[in-house]
């Protein structure tokens, strides 16, 4: 059995909402092994996005522990969370979230800018990441000059550039046609084959079928955990 990269135990997230408390996650226990290719699924409001935010260290749990690569990250400082996001996690969003005024290469360079600004290989690494998503010829295009699929591939290159151990994709195909979407999922799958843990949050059962494991959420609980 491979080593668990993510270990959640009793993970709870409550939101105060107009005097009432919404229980977005109710004591989740989940282990994700290094190199897994998995989907987190469920209808909207099931807690999957909240889980994604906590996994991505954009948010902190109300209770429970989250262990990422043997480090308890449930209650660490904002600064440390930023460091981990930068070094261990790559994000892919539904809306691509590229900087509109920067070209593809600069977008890919962005994560390196904050930790290794003087790295002479910065440009090279960004180009290499673009090569991995087959976009080296679009390096100097602005996002507005790229198609949705190309923009998402730039975002994937950006997620890859710091050699993360975990890639979190939040509805990565939501803004794409199904053919392009499939290509993106295949691309993500190829990284899993290289040993990177890939977690996709989606409500698209088709995507779920492409992955090796599906965790289905409902009302803050894990409803099913299927491995194929």
């Amino acid at each position, binding site marked *: 059995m491979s080593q668990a990269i993510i270990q959640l135990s009793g993970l709870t997230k409550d939101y105060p909402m107009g005097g009432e408390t919404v229980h977005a996650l109710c004591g989740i226990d989940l282990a994700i092994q290094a190199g897994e290719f998995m989907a987190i699924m469920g209808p909207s409001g099931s807690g999957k996005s909240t889980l994604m*935010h906590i996994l*991505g260290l*954009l*948010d902190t749990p109300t209770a429970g522990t989250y262990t990422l690569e043997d480090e308890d990250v449930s209650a660490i400082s*904002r*600064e440390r969370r*930023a*460091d981990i*996001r*930068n*070094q261990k996690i790559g*994000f892919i*969003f539904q809306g691509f*979230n*590229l*900087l*509109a*005024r920067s070209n593809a290469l600069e977008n890919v360079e*962005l*994560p390196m*800018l*904050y*930790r290794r*600004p*003087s790295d002479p290989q*910065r440009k090279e690494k960004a180009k290499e990441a673009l090569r991995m998503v087959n976009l080296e010829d679009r390096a100097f295009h602005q996002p507005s000059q790229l198609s949705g699929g190309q923009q998402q591939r730039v975002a994937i290159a*950006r997620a890859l550039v*710091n050699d993360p151990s975990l890639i979190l994709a939040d509805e990565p195909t939501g803004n794409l046609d199904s053919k392009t979407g499939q290509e993106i999922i295949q691309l993500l799958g190829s990284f899993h084959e290289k040993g990177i843990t890939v977690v996709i949050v989606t409500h698209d059962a088709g995507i779920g079928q492409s992955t090796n494991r599906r965790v289905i959420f409902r009302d803050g609980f894990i409803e099913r955990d299927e491995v194929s």
Partner: protein
Amino acid sequence: MDYWLTVLRLAVRAMLAYKVRSLLTMLGIIIGIGAVIIMISVGRGANAAIQAQINDLGSNMLMIFSGSSKAGGVRGGFGTRPTLRVKDAEAIGRECPAVKVVTYLISRNVQIVSPKTNWGTQVYGTTPEYMEVRGDWPLREGQFFTAQHLKAGASVVVLGSSVADNIFDPGQAAVGQMIRIQNVPFRVIGVMETKGRTPDGRDQDDVVYVPYTTVQSRLMGTRLPGVVYYIGVSAQSKELVAEAKREVEELLRQRHRILPNADDDFTVRTLDEFAAMADKATGTMTLLLTAVAAVSLAVGGIGIMNIMLVSVTERTREIGIRMAVGARERDVLIQFLVESTTMSFIGGLFGTVMGISAAKAISAVANWPTIISVDSILLATLFSAAVGIFFGFYPARKASRLDPIEALRYE
């Protein structure tokens, strides 16, 4: 270094993305800094003009006047009691190390007669050193009298330019002419360059100079032998003026046998009073300038803060993206601070250029002296950058404190 370059490039790019808005934002700083530069150059120019006038009165000069007479409680004022003597002046020259040059002077009103006309003026009986004490004062024609003239009691006269202009025709050479002072014939050996009027309107050129000994023997009789109205002293340097004053006072008290608690029978004046007056004027000017600068820069700074707040709101999503890929609070803070500082700094540069041009224009059109100095330019640009940091801090901090999830969701 690369980090800062990249951040700077981002800031410039953000500025260029909204050119008109950035320019309008900078306008407050441009006007503020421009006003500061104009006021500094005009103020410095005026101050330099005043200072030049003071220096014109004589370099490092001390003026020693004899004491006032007192008769039945009526005090006569400076020079009414003849207490200063030639020997005092000579002793000062001999015994006061801080003193460079000594001269002395006796004066009286006279009527002078040229072959053609006559003119009422003052005669100064003095020594050749007078010219040195009065500072750099060239002759228009001929030369000043010499130590030999003084020793011999020669009947030679040097005319002030106003006197020469009044008793001789324009273009006529004055040197070599004979004139009469109190019926005594004198040969004109020089004419002074025009010095102009003192700040109180007295014409410094309406005077004639004659060796002291000649005045004593030929024009005053021997009523008060060796008496002078005034001793002029030039100190070794500007710094030694106070020291010279102390030495002179000590020496004269000794020579005049004044008891420790008694009043001096003489008065020593320096040009410090004038200099102090000028400093006061400059101080007022500086205060005014500072107030204007502070108000305009504050207004400019608030403009920058306002636009930066708008910018932070508009770019919430961008901030969210940056945070998601690992930007720390301080990275975001620095980015927005650099942006506001760049904006105000560039505004400051524009303002400096504008201020210099305006100051030059004032100089040319109004014939008003202006001095543009490097330090005022440096001060202005540094200050504009400081305004950017100060007023950019609040918006930048607001940006850095955003919640990444909220920021990413922002439409």
